[in-house]
């Protein structure tokens, strides 16, 4: 689908064009998810909240006063998301430093609070399916070294006696299969905000 420039989207939303709002969500939601995933520390619930909040703020702003430079709509959305992420982080930090009974309870229950963070269960399920399908133990270990241990490719190739080409090929195959598993199971479109995709 074509990418509609920010200026045109802004104008149409200001004129009350509902389809332009859907289009804005379709265009910006994937990028916002990338941006906010990095800033929400694996808290999937918070990620969803912040993406939703960002899009609502942007749409409401365009319906009302508009933005200074409509051509820079994407940059405005990105900065709004960053500001919301910072505000959310500050709030969490404040809660951690508040000395009241509620905060003390939270601290005492810190192991549970980690578990309470809403995780990306679909991704975990797809990874499990992927690991089951990988015939070579070496390929599973390669994924662990690369994504979990954050080792350099060069080091992993040395350890597993792989050429760089073989490494890239195996990694590319694993990525493709991971995406395929998510799509087959409908997880790729699972998020509330994947509108019109």
């Amino acid at each position, binding site marked *: 689908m074509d990418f509609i420039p920010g200026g045109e989207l802004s104008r149409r939303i200001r004129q009350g064009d509902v389809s332009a709002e859907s289009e804005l969500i379709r265009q910006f939601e994937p990028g916002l998810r*990338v*941006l906010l995933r990095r800033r929400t520390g694996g808290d999937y619930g*918070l990620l969803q909240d912040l993406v939703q909040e960002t899009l609502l703020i942007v749409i409401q702003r365009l319906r009302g006063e508009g933005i200074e430079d409509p051509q820079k709509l994407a940059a405005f959305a990105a900065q709004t998301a960053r500001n919301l992420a910072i505000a959310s982080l500050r709030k969490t930090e404040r809660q951690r430093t508040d000395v009241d009974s509620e905060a003390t309870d939270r601290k005492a229950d810190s192991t549970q609070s980690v578990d309470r963070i809403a995780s990306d269960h679909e991704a975990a399920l797809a990874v499990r399916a992927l690991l*089951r399908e990988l015939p070579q133990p070496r390929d599973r270990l390669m994924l662990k070294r690369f994504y979990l241990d954050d080792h350099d490719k060069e080091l992993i190739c040395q350890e597993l006696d792989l050429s760089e080409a073989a490494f890239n090929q195996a990694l590319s195959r694993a990525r493709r299969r991971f995406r395929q598993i998510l799509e087959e199971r409908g997880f790729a479109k699972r998020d509330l905000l994947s509108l019109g995709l």
Partner: protein
Amino acid sequence: MNQELIEQYVAGRLSEPEAQAFEDYCLANPEFARQVEYEQRLKAGIAQVARGSTAEFVRAPHPLQWTLAAAASMLLVLVAMFYIWNPGARAMAPSILAAANFAPYDGPSLRLALVRGSDTAPTLPPGLVRVEIVGLFDVGHQYSVALDRLEKNKKIDTVATLNDQQPNSPVSLVVIIDSGQLRAGPYSLRVRKQASGEEALDFGFVKF
């Protein structure tokens, strides 16, 4: 933008200005952003699987696990079929919760939105209340809305369910609640996109 840059971003190896430039590019290129997100999800999924044990990375799963998983799946399917085919199992109280048409409404109204950090829940006024649920909705799909009463013992009692609701716009869905039929206490409206695996969104309020 190439795969190596995606890897560096996902691994957190870019400087902040570089990462922000990368993110700005993602905002302007949805298909590229999706590619990045798959990489993020792969990394996150691996971290999650490894949280308990890294055994799955070094050996194949035991065949018994497959048998147990298949049995559990079958049980889930049977339970779901029973639930679908047994109307008595579903909470239906249309007189408490009703669909709203698109006509102007002069009665009491309430606007529910997800407000993170808010400690106070909005109050449901008396009468037939027009409740606007603010969120992001897919106008081409139907939603179910369940009204739950939140008991003190954390038990959730579904008092009414409304299916096949169309959003009024990409950012709002409206229903009518008969406040007079509700006991005082905390409630939640649970909104779920039908025929999807998406998790429901909860919007809390209080009836005095």
